């Protein structure tokens, strides 16, 4: 792979990763604040962000450790929240060229990076893919680490000084998901399935099942897809 294509992929990855900053930095600042309030030092909070690097589960882990819950239970709950990640890499494999870098790069495979990669990689030149993934995941990872450190150092005063920023910037994430998902509304089958999944996720996240909302909603969507496909096949066989 030439250095030139690696660099152009890297540059494109950094550009494509910029919308993530709006969502990552405010949440990372909140994590830094909460971790310090829970008794962790800023360095410890930052190291947690650097090495676990998984939003919701970090909040859960810190809260459980602070409340004195058994550590084995805190670890199990963290992994349970992150278990949804198992379906991400297999969905990307058909688009990944051979490279020894992929296993190392998987540390950066968060929800948002998966959504970006699943949409951008299929239309990209193979020679740019490793560089692109490095660029996009580096932007996300560094913003998460820096945000946590900022939160630990002076998060409270930051959010008090710019309360609007704290409420407005996180909209970058749903806006990004919306743009990534929009091309998939290409047929009646997919449009209905995606709408059911989104609605289920919204309702579940507003209820008491907040941490399980994503996998449960995806299951609802899968059942909808199966039923609609079955219905379509039945109609077709009746027509024949």
């Amino acid at each position, binding site marked *: 792979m030439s250095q030139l294509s690696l660099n152009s992929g890297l540059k494109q990855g950094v550009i494509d990763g910029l919308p993530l900053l709006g969502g990552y930095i405010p949440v990372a600042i909140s994590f830094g604040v909460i971790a310090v309030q829970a008794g962790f030092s800023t360095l410890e909070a930052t190291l947690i962000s650097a090495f*676990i690097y998984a939003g919701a589960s970090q909040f859960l882990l810190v809260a459980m450790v602070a409340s004195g819950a058994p550590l084995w239970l805190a670890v199990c709950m963290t992994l349970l929240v992150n278990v949804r990640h198992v379906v991400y890499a297999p969905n990307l494999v058909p688009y990944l060229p051979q490279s020894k870098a992929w296993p190392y790069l*998987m540390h950066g495979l968060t929800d*948002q990076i998966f959504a970006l990669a699943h949409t951008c990689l299929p239309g990209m030149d193979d020679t740019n893919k490793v560089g692109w993934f490095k660029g996009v995941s580096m932007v996300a990872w560094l913003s998460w680490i820096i945000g946590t450190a900022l939160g630990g150092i002076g998060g409270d005063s930051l959010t008090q000084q710019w309360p609007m920023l704290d409420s407005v910037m996180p909209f970058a994430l749903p*806006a990004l998901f919306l743009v990534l*998902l929009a091309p998939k509304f290409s047929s009646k089958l997919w449009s209905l399935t995606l709408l059911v999944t989104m609605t289920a*996720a*919204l309702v579940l996240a507003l209820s008491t099942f907040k941490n399980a909302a994503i996998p449960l909603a995806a299951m609802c969507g899968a059942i909808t897809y199966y039923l609609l496909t079955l219905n379509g096949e039945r109609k077709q066989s009746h027509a024949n």
Partner: protein
Amino acid sequence: MQIDIWIAIVVAAIGTYALRVGPLLWTQRHFNKHKANNTEARLPLWLSVLGPLMIAAMLGTSLIPKTPSTASWIATVIGTVVTVFIWRKTKSLGLPVFCGVLSFGIVFGLVLGADVKLPG
């Protein structure tokens, strides 16, 4: 911090990484086996369907505003409409997100301002 808490954090970090990298290695091996046999490798249908569904589920959960209120819900609806509208016009990534966040911020600020001015 106590050493046992650090051990828990290290185990959680290794476990999370394993959840991300394990399925990659397994699927790559499956694809390489098919390649060696000159057969076409395909993901199981349920797994390939789950990819877009996970993104849709993430969208659903992320639509809930950080501080739910009338102002933030109205701003969410307007921001969503603007994002989709700009995406339909440009089919690009960055501009729709930028316009969506901007419209969310403007509407949120306006409705919040109106709320504050209301008596009582």
